Every structure is written in C-alpha cells, then in structure tokens.
C-alpha cells in the first residue's frame, strides 16, 4: 500500500474531526476522498501530508511510519483549493521552488521545469505572474510545482473547487490523463460525487469523521453500505422505509395494486434525460428520471395525476447499515 492510515483520531477542541479512521490507498492509484463539508476529508488529507498532527493513530507512506515525520521530510505533493501560488514569483520560479530548496543544480532545474511546463500546457507563460493567469492555469501551475520534487504521493485538496463548471470538467479529464502519464499515487478530496466517480478508481466516502465505505464507483452506487452512501453517492429518494433510485421507477397512467399515486409538479428537460418531479398524496416529494422518448410516449404534462411503481428498492437495517434489495417484477395487467 502506498498510503495506510491506521486508527487516526483528530480533535479540534471538542470537535472530533476524525474518529478512528483507517484507510488504505493502493500504489499508483487515483483515489477520491468524498464527503460533505465537515466530514473530515480535508483533515484526513492534511494529516497524511503532515500539515496536521493526529491525536492518535498512525500514517504510513510507502510502508514507513511517517506519523512523526515533519511535513518537509515527507516528500508529498500538495495542491490547495485556492492554488496557494507564490504571488511574488513567476510561473517558472513557482515551479522551480521545490527544486531550489532541494539544492538542485541550475541546469537540472531548467530542464525539469521545462518538462513540467510542457506537461501542464503552460508553455509561453513562464515569465507570467500568478495574477496574470486564469484559475485553471494557476491550478495547473500548482500541480506542476507539486510534481517538480517527484513526490511519493500527490494530495489534492478540492483542487477544482474554486473553478467554474466548464473549466472544472476540462481539468478533470486532464488530471485523469496526467495520472495515466505520471502514475504517482494520488488522493484528491472532493464533495462532488460526480467528480469522484468520473476521476477516481477508488472512492472513500466519509461522513461525520468516519469512513462510511470505500470501493470502486460502481460498487458504491450499486451496493451502498449505508443509508448515507445511498443518499450521497448518486441521487436517491426515500419511499417509506425503502430507498429507490430515480431511474428505477416506472410511471403509468393506471393503478395496478403495486403503484403509488402522485401528481407531476414539474418536468425538467436536461437534454437526453428528463427529470419528472412528483408530489405524493402525503405531500412527500421525489423525482423520477426518464428519457426524452419515454416522456413523449407517456404524454406526461405538469399537473397530471400518475401512478408510480419502483422497480427496485433497497431497505437498510435499522442501524442504517446492511441492506436488502427487492426487485419487483412487473405484474401483467
């Protein structure tokens, strides 16, 4: 394992940011720490980097116990949400910073910075200052700066959080490709489940200072370990005791005994997908995901009364963990 965190607890005053957390990150992988704000994901990343000292537990990097190692000696690359660019230095000097600290020769530095600048597509920007770059360019510079010292692991703290949606998506794809080229073990923190599923091979879902579940994107979606994961990873709605995904629901015009009555509040066209927002008779609201063709076929309109039938539901044990899936075959009507 490239990174192992064992039973780490971290408190800030009375607040328990990390509560006996253990994770394993495989060598060369791209892992996402996913969770809502305050879930402890950034704190965990900072503990791994050595920017926070855990109250209890151990941090192992490449098999070595690094719990007591100073941040300077951990050789980790860290990228901050707000870039943390050295504003008084040019792009070149920013990227060269770590190499200069290491005392590399000027020839080596020039060569290495040149490679990195090409790698992050900032050729021609060497002499610019950070405030002359766009957000996306600054973050690419920050990434090159972190990679310059050939870190053992790369840690990204909400790296795309401060960027607008389009740039975020571009950088996501770019990071994915970069990782294929560079192959450094990478952990990135995000609160955006779509981003995590898009980029990461392994996702560790955190909530309330604890790890809820870790696994591949598909595992988390199809086999959530807890109600929290069910609701946080991908859309899900609660119908009574059961959880249902919006795409696992049929809409029909006639009741058939298995159906629930609902009124269409709103029909939202999202391109190929259409989201139909419904209100149940008890006032509960939920939405169903259909394709454009299905909506046309059913001739759905806002204000209509329809009957919905979940095709597949998941019921969790009373403690929120462990679940059973019920698939309801269609009853011939």
């Amino acid at each position: 394992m490239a990174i192992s965190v064992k039973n780490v607890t971290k408190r800030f005053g009375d607040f328990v940011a990390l509560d006996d957390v253990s994770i394993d990150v495989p060598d060369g992988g791209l892992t996402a720490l996913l969770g809502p704000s305050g879930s402890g994901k950034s704190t965990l990343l900072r503990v791994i980097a050595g920017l926070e000292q855990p109250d209890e537990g151990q941090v192992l990097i490449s098999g070595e116990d690094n719990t007591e190692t100073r941040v300077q000696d951990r050789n980790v690359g860290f990228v901050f949400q707000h870039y943390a660019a050295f504003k008084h230095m040019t792009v070149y000097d920013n990227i060269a910073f770590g190499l200069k600290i290491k005392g590399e020769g000027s020839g080596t530095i020039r060569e290495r910075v040149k490679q990195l600048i090409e790698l992050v597509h900032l050729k021609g920007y060497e002499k610019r200052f950070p405030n002359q770059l766009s957000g996306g360019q600054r973050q690419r510079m920050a990434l090159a700066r972190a990679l310059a010292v050939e870190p053992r692991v790369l840690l990204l703290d909400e790296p795309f959080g401060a960027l607008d949606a389009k740039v975020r998506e571009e950088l996501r794809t770019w990071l994915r490709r970069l990782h294929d080229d560079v192959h450094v073990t990478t952990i990135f923190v995000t609160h955006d489940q779509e981003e995590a599923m898009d980029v990461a091979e392994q996702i560790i879902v955190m909530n309330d200072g604890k790890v809820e579940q870790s696994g591949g994107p598909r595992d988390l979606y199809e086999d959530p370990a807890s109600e929290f994961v069910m609701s946080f990873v991908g859309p899900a709605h609660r119908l009574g005791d059961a959880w249902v995904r919006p795409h696992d629901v049929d809409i029909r015009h006639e009741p058939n005994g298995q159906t629930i009555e609902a009124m269409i509040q709103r029909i939202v066209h999202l391109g190929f997908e259409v989201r139909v927002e419904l209100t149940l008779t008890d006032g509960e609201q939920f939405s169903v995901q259909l394709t454009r063709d299905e909506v046309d076929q059913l001739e759905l309109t806002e204000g209509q009364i329809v009957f919905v039938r979940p095709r597949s539901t998941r019921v969790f044990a009373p403690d929120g963990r462990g679940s059973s899936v019920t698939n309801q075959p269609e009853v011939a009507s």
Partner: protein
Amino acid sequence: MPVGLIFYRTFEHGLSAPIEAITSSDGLHAFWLTIVCVGIAVPLNTIFGVITALVLVRQDFRGKSLVNAVIDVPFAISPVIIGLALFLVYAPRNSWFGGWLMDQGVQVIFSVPGMVLATIFVSLPFVVREVMPVLQEIGTDQEEAAETLGATPWQTFWRVTLPAIRWGVSYGVVLATARALGEFGAVSVVAGNISGQTQTLPLFVRSQFDNLNLAGAYAAGIVLAILAISVLFSMNLLQRRSARNAGGGDEDHELPGPGVFVPQPIEKEA
C-alpha cells in the same frame, strides 16, 4: 501652505543666518543624533514588529488579546507620559534600576540610550499594526505549500512570508520612521535637552525658537521636513519599481485598508 511659509521665513533675510544655524556644531550634532535614534529605533521596531505580528496572527496562546491591546499603548498614552514613565524607571536616583545601571556605568536618562528607548517606544506599534492585517489576508496556504515542498520554517519565512508581507512592512517602516524623526514629547522629557549632547532635531528647533533665533528654528524645521518627505518619497519610488517587477499585476498591492492611523501620502502606483 504652512510648510511653504516656513520656507519663505527661513530665507527671508538671506541664506547666511539659516545656514549658519544648521551648520553650527549644535545643529549638526542634533542632526546626527536624530539619525542615530531613528537608525536604531526603526530597525529594532521592524524586527520586533514582524515577529510580534507573526506570533499574534499565527499562534494561539493565553493572554493573546492582552498582548494585542498592550501593543497600542504608545498610541493611547501621551508621549510626555511615556517620557515620564521612562524617567521613573531609569532615572539615576529614586528609580527602579536607573541607579543600578548607573553603577554599571550606563546612564540612560539625560543621555542617548534613554532617547533611543523613548523613540523605540513611541514608534513601536506601526510595523505590527501594518503587518498583522496583511498576514491575515494572505493566510497560511502559501507557507504550507512551501513546507510541503521541503522548505524549513526559516526558508519559508525569507522566501515566501516576507515577500508576501513586504508592502505592509514597508508602510510600517515609513510610518515608524516619520514618527521617530519628529518625536518631541517623550524624547524631550528623558533627554534633558543639553545642546550639543542630548538634542535631536525637534529639540533643536524648539531651543532655537526659545532663543528667538527664528531663522535657525525654521532652517532646522526644513531639514526635518525634507528628511520626512524624502523617506516617503523613496518609499514611493521603491513601490513603483516593485510594481513594475511584479509585471504590472496589482493583486499584491491590496494593502490593508487604511487603519485609523494611516495617512495617505503614498499613492498606489500601478
């Protein structure tokens, strides 16, 4: 206008009287002593100010708000009182350890060390108060980034923190220098005003004035004004040059909004 009037008055009766006054041995000594006081007080205050600001902004400890409040004491208390307080502590007789120091051969009151102390004290808060908001503004991201790249705290300070707060430090230095140059009250209490020995330029102006040597007083006043203005002016030049070096970008120049004691002699030059 008043400054212009001083110029006019100085040279009203020709050049000889004012020049004579400021090139007199007392005048030159006063000039020299002012430079000594400022030259010791300002660097010390700069170092103290940066360290104090770092501690107050970056560290948490008990009594922090008390320390924070105490920093402003020199602003709150009249300089004359500060002079009296120094007198009570350091006077050769009937004081806390003035007598003991005297036995060691160090005379503080009525001599240069006391004047330097008084100057340090009155110009103490400027650097701290200018640097603190800048430190708060830049946050810890850049410093942490430097650390993850292998920089020691010392390297981080010189290569990242100090360049990031340089404008705050510069402003603080300019203000402290201006204050130290012109300090009259506290220095006059501890100095004893012995011409040729413990007279700084402001004290010299006063004594010339009292002796009805108006041309001399005005001339010394002009020297003082020129000193102060040239400090501000050199600051301005420095800033313009650095702005050019920073590639014309202006983001670094978001200086702390003018606090209560910040005059605005220095324009932002893009």
